[in-house]
């Protein structure tokens, strides 16, 4: 009896571990190992084309070089600009879309499904699509604006600021619906009674939106903001397909810079440092967000 009692917790924990083990193993090999490996590589000087350098341990040298690297600084500015523009626009568009598909109207299911299409298209395909739309010779944008006036056609992607704007536009087009989905979930949590009560009190549509919808949507909005910021920070495929960082480095984002140094230039140590830096920035950002979301949820519970 006592022996059995002593064994049970042991057996239970054994069973628990054996059930968790596969997932744990997968996480460690595919998530933890690459991160730790990159971190380790970023402390070395490894250049594929120069095996005579060996793999010397250089400590924080790569990170110090990164701080002084003007291309990295430019890439950081472009990335931050991209994050700011695209997330704000995506939240705004997402909110509008969510409010529309939250209303009851004929064919709402169809509209809801249709709105998700851009999000379902692989980014590489979408990027190619936008590159064609803004092609200087046969692009749809030129056809739409100038018709047969071919002499007026604009080489969109050859202007630094336009190219940047088009990359942002492509991202907004593609992921607004994802933001809308998150915001819609938030909308559906708001009880209808609140609106009825407000209506009885004589509140107009704008007042209802301002004083009920917006405050109660705050957690959903913050969540959408968190997801979109993190994703925007990691933008890569859009730039890779559409502009390759050009023209004149106007769309050179950090992730693409990391890719170039790692894979094209073969500077394994330095490229890893760039990737780790991006990772750390996203980590810091998400911690800030999570705190904000957590506290906003607490506030809600208190009221």
């Amino acid at each position, binding site marked *: 009896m006592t022996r059995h009692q002593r064994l049970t917790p042991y057996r239970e924990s054994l069973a628990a571990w054996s059930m968790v083990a596969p997932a744990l193993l997968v996480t460690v090999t595919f998530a933890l190992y690459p991160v730790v*490996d990159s971190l380790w*590589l970023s402390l070395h000087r*490894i*250049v*594929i*084309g*120069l*095996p*005579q*350098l*060996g*793999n*010397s341990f250089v400590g924080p040298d790569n990170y110090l070089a990164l701080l002084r690297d*003007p*291309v990295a600084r430019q890439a950081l500015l472009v990335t931050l600009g991209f994050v700011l523009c695209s997330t704000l626009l995506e939240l705004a568009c997402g909110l509008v879309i969510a409010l529309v598909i939250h209303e009851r109207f004929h064919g709402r299911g169809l509209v809801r499904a249709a709105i998700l299409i851009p999000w379902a298209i692989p980014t590489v395909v979408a990027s190619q699509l936008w590159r064609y739309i803004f092609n*200087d*010779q046969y692009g749809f944008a030129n056809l739409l604006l100038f018709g047969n006036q*071919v*002499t007026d056609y604009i*080489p969109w*992607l*050859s*202007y*630094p600021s336009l190219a940047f704007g088009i990359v942002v536009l492509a991202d907004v087009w593609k992921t607004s619906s994802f933001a809308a989905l998150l915001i819609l979930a938030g909308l559906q949590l708001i009880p209808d009674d609140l609106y009825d009560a407000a209506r009885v009190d004589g509140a107009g549509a704008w007042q209802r939106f301002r004083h009920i919808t917006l405050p109660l949507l705050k957690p959903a909005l913050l969540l959408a903001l968190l997801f979109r910021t993190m994703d925007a920070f990691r933008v890569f495929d859009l730039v890779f397909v559409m502009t*390759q*960082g*050009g*023209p*004149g*480095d*106007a769309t050179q984002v950090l992730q693409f810079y990391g890719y*170039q*140094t790692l*894979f*094209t*230039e*073969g*500077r*394994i140590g330095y490229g890893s440092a760039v990737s780790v830096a991006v990772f750390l920035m996203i980590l810091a950002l998400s911690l800030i967000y999570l705190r904000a979301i957590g506290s906003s949820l607490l506030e809600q519970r208190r009221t």
Partner: protein
Amino acid sequence: MRWISSRQRIQRPRQSCALTVSRWIVLLTLILLTGSTGVAPAASSLEVAATTSKSHVTLRFVSWKPDHPRVWDDALAQFTAAHPHITVVRELAPHSSTAYHDLLTQKLKNGDTTVDVFFMDVIWVPEFAAARWARPLEDRFLPALQQAFLPATLEVGRYDKHLYGVPSRIDAGLLYYRKDLLTKYGFLPPTTWDALVRQAETILAGERTASPILQGYVAQFKQYEGLVCNMLEMIEAHGGSLLTADATRSTLSAEPALHAVQFVRDRLIGRITPRAALTYQEPESLTLFLQGHAIFHRNWPYAWELANNHARSTVAGQIGVAPLPGFAGGRNAAALGGWLYGISAGSQHPQEAWALIEFLSSETMQKRFAQEAGIAPSRTALFSDPDLLATSPQLLNHLAVLQTATPRPRSPIYPALSHLLQRYFGRALAVDGVDLQQEAAIADAHIDRLLALTRSRP
């Protein structure tokens, strides 16, 4: 290298796993097929399958997407017909040299065995050799065979006294022009850039009403490897260079290089060259020329065949070709480009790989590639082949240009060097109001630091 070996450790079990899975699939299929006759025959036919697959070799050939896929398919079919025990599996990568480089080096770096034969850009030889990805070829590429190739085309495959590539095609930049338009205005093909600009301006002014979208000069100015070739030609033509003669320092802020960049920026882009050329690689710029929308066009020798191909070009028969112009007081310059066949150091079938390379670079095949795909040959004999010269007069120009063509810096870290150059040229051409002198100085400092890395030995 620790990093590589760790990748290999992950790679291997996965492959053996894939192998067992495919064996299981074969076994299951056989059992299902012979299900009615029982297990014994199934087992014996499996043995047969196993023995034939042992002597049979599958060669993996990694290349970019060719301009004339049919010619390549035919060539490979011919090879397999002559070597029935070899199957060639082709992996096609993007047309862009940079994108292809990224894909290929990923495979080679990981010791991936799915590469046997690959195309190698001339600028990668030092990198591939230093990283020990490409196999030295002297044991099969014997001196007697080497003598059949133009010396200039062999040299690009050499690094540290070893040969790593068999020249498939060695290119140099050429100037294509519209013979009909030049004749109409009484011009001879320009020998200086100033003359080219003047001719283009005159023709554009005259043709404005007839064809409003006609452009003067189209070339490749997108921020990628081709930009380096185009700008190298301009800088060399101005009597400048990218690096000092001993290749230890960058010379972008020297007068000739600055002038050359200024010339492209102020006299070409947005004037006789459409601004859209800042987004053009070879295919886009060639398309414009093939549609008859450009007077002058810079490209590699392969463009001749396409420009005169009635199915793809509206200006076939009206094209002339000449060496790229120079500058008064400077000289003519063409960037050296081209592709070599290489064998992966990790290939399990070097013998069969060599057989494929020998076949593809044979005189017969090179002649076919030249005639049907416009690929400039690398064998000396073909440059005096009457059949070939009758259809491809650009080869004579090419031979002359090839003797004096300028290679891009030969360095094991060329990709990094190229990125810095691409960035500088990209910014210099695309960003309005950029201070050229300042940008050039920044690029110089960067490149010098990079070059110092190649000299440092622990």
